[in-house]
């Protein structure tokens, strides 16, 4: 059996279509639960007051922006190396969502920084590398849009995405490697979390909500890209005929 049999765009189209309602429902339910825990159950922070409640979206958005970048670069590389069409399509579909999460991380960070640090922005290592992440996403999107030939476009995008991936560990470790105004990690893979468990619960539930959202929106966009690229395929013709009968 070939390794990428399940990566046929037609199969993915059907499977993701069946998953979408569940993903949207999970995102909504988890976000409602997370906001309830974060705003109703969790108390006011002793040192940061109410401003700390921004972290329930700031941290998950920042995490998602990094994870999605790695996913984008990974799929782009798979598409390039093994010529898997679906992988390149996924990479393209991830980029706008990753860019928006990077923007949300920067926006909410600025709105947290103003009352807490007294400034919207500083050019410290964490903030600057996160801004570069946003530019990498935008650069990837502009590059793949600028090249008409899909194959060359995918390859150029993959090259940019893979080189840019070096920025992700830089963001993650920036608060350790440099003396940043941005605080160190409150939650890490190697140590016990440095925050109250109720606040941590809210933040983790919001993270799962963002995951579900990201899967849902990326799958929706992937389905659009599949149709755009495979217009001439037999299975798409059958699909649109069925849709026409349904409507």
């Amino acid at each position, binding site marked *: 059996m070939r390794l990428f049999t399940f990566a046929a765009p037609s199969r993915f189209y059907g499977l993701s279509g069946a998953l979408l309602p569940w993903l949207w429902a999970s995102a909504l339910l988890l976000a409602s639960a997370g906001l309830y825990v974060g705003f109703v159950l969790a108390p006011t922070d002793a040192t940061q007051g109410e401003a700390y409640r921004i972290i329930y979206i700031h941290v998950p958005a920042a995490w998602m922006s990094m994870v999605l970048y790695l996913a984008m670069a990974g799929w782009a590389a798979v598409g390039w190396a093994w010529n898997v069409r679906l992988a390149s399509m996924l990479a393209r579909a991830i980029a706008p969502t990753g860019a*928006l999460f990077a923007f949300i991380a920067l926006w909410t960070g600025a709105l947290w920084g103003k009352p807490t640090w007294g400034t919207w922005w500083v050019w410290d290592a964490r903030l600057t590398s996160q801004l570069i992440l946003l530019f990498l996403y935008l650069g990837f999107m502009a590059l793949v849009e600028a090249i008409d030939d899909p194959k060359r476009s995918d390859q150029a995008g993959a090259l940019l995405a893979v080189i840019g991936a070096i920025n992700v560990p830089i963001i993650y470790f920036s608060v350790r490697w440099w003396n940043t105004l941005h605080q160190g990690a409150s939650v890490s893979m190697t140590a016990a979390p440095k925050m109250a468990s109720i606040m941590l619960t809210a933040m983790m539930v919001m993270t799962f909500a963002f995951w579900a959202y990201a899967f849902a929106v990326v799958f929706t*966009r992937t389905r659009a890209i599949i149709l755009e690229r495979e217009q001439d395929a037999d299975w798409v013709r059958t699909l649109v005929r069925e849709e026409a009968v349904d409507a």
Partner: protein
Amino acid sequence: MRELIELGGYGTYVWGSYLVTALIMAVEPLMARHRQKLALQQAAMVADEESEQGN
């Protein structure tokens, strides 16, 4: 209610964060869905043209 809006003086910052995030997360799925609808219509047009040529 007033307390919830003001959030101890941090209301502008907290709600400014949540409002923009909610807006983005409402508009992005609509745009993705719209793109998918357009792609379906486009594919239907291509299929129609081909079946006309075939006749």
